[in-house]
């Protein structure tokens, strides 16, 4: 590919622009930490996420008076190590984020490109569907979908993917429509390229920048919504160490064990923050027009 030759200099330029934004660099740092933690969960975690230590129900974190070094962030109501659960939770959250974004990105982009290329009735139909979905608050629609499909992590992911589809459809359709009017597309078409080839090989690569930014920010939406579903008892089911589910299970202990509440939510916040900061930085660096 000829693009690889030009890559280093473009990458350097991109990095220079990106690194100007301290928030974005902080977000990237957080992301790297999360990814490393998730990848090395088996090495880093002191215990398995579901092992119950019957002598250590609701042990406080290590810096409290009754803390125990075996459980640095304390244990939950059935004696599971908080830190280990959080570490495995990172793996789950990233996996959820990645799967949801991948599904939504692939289906959404395909639908968006189809709408742009087909035009007419197909376009109207797809875009009207998008309008309809957008009328429902996304969390509400996800809740309804899970309520119907039945609670569980897979269904929750599916629901979140469905409710985030409109963003990808609109974005890819809009950028494709802009590209379709350019001369290079006309030239490729005149050269006899098939519609499929035109869609995915000619036009799509030139629409990628906004889609990448949207997908990065989509990670945080996906993780946040999946955690909210978990919190409502509609997502991952106990004893899965999903952060939102952990919060739901700890609700009744709010008066005597703050740590079972504080840490999972803080982990969600940091993860979502990391992707939001990184996504904002990416947008500014990829699209200088938006930067002021």
């Amino acid at each position, binding site marked *: 590919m000829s693009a690889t030759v030009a890559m280093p200099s473009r990458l350097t330029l991109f990095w220079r622009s990106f690194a100007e934004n301290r*928030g974005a660099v902080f977000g990237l740092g957080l992301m790297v930490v999360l990814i490393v933690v998730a990848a090395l969960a088996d090495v880093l975690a002191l215990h398995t996420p579901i092992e119950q230590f019957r002598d250590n129900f609701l042990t406080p974190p290590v810096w409290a008076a009754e803390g125990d070094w075996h459980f640095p962030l304390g244990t939950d109501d059935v004696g599971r190590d908080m830190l280990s659960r959080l570490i495995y939770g990172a793996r789950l959250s990233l996996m959820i984020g990645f799967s949801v974004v991948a599904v939504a990105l692939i289906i959404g982009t395909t639908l968006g490109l189809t709408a742009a290329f087909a035009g007419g009735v197909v376009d109207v139909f797809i875009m*009207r*569907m998008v*309008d*309809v*979905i*957008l*009328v*429902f*608050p*996304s*969390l*509400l*629609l996800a*809740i*309804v*979908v899970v*309520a*119907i*499909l039945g609670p569980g992590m897979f269904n929750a992911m599916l629901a979140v993917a469905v409710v985030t589809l409109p963003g990808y459809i609109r974005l890819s359709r809009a950028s494709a429509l802009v590209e379709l009017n350019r001369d290079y597309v006309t030239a490729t078409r005149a050269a006899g390229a098939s519609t499929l080839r035109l869609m995915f090989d000619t036009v799509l690569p030139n629409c990628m920048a906004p889609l990448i930014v949207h997908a990065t920010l989509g990670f*945080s939406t996906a993780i*946040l919504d999946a*955690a*909210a579903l978990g*919190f*409502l008892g*509609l997502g991952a089911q106990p004893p899965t160490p999903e952060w*939102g589910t952990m*919060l739901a299970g700890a*609700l009744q202990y*709010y*008066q005597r064990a*703050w740590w079972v*509440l*504080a840490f*999972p*939510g*803080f982990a*969600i*916040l940091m993860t*979502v*923050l990391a992707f*939001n*900061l990184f996504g*904002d930085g990416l947008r500014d660096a990829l699209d200088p027009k938006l930067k*002021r």
Partner: protein
Amino acid sequence: MLIVPTFIGVTLLSFTLIHLVPGDPIEARVGERGIAPERLAALRHEFGYDQPLWKQFVDYEVQVVHGDLGVSLVTRQTVWSEFLTLFPATIELAFCAIGFAVLIGIPLGVVAALRRGTPFDYGLMGASVTGASMPIFWWGLMMILVFSVGFGWTPVSGRVSDMYFVEPWSGFMLIDCWFSDDEGACRSTLSHLILPTIVLGTIPLANFARMTRSAMLEVLGEDYIRTARAKGLSGMRVTVVHALRNALIPVVTVIGLSVGGLLGGAILTETIFAWPGVGHWIIESIQRRDYPVLQGGTLLIAIIVIGVNLGVDMLYSVLNPRIRR
């Protein structure tokens, strides 16, 4: 947005979703306990689930247009009447949250724009991206931990303390307690409102501050701001009358578009604070497998969002003389 096709689409979606339930809603509700087949058939007939699908949809559409959203499988009350008793609680909360976000977020955004590049600006932008990333179900719990459990300042749940009885003639607790002339009840209502308002208002607050800042930065660079200053107007007048007035045009759109997200957030907030509103009701309907309530409640919320979007479009044309004829 074309209202009629959107409305039909919305009803079709809510109809389809409910019919994706394995079996039918009656079967799902009786679950594994099972009941006598004759009783099941009678119930099916009563709720119309024995009709062909297209007939069910047409009937449903006709009913919805006539304001009939069905009957709760649990309470046998109409969905509409249940919604009406609970909706004021949700509106009250949503209204307070939007007010909180607007009254704090917009001034903060303006000040950040005026002091761009200062530590205040950076601090506020950092806080706003954090606020926008907030899992509000956890944020609410942390607020309860600190302010209710830690300091004992605010109550944990509900709209008013059990000690008081307030005649619910409007359904809006703030209005009802005002007219009840009961100072204690008013105080109790306010203290119950504070935490849910802050929790539900956090994400909009962060978004409004960010949006206001960038809109203000754009407007402050415009030629007409220089003209206003060349008239010898005070900095305050230039900022508010000339800059903010223009910056509000995009900000109002964002405020309108945040209503949907706010109603989604209300589901979480109402669950945390046991707030007897529509969000709480919908979550309960899922636990009770009360599908008509789930379907009707969702549809009503969608209709509200359509209405709000229409209102925003109209407000936009009022605010922006350039698109007014």
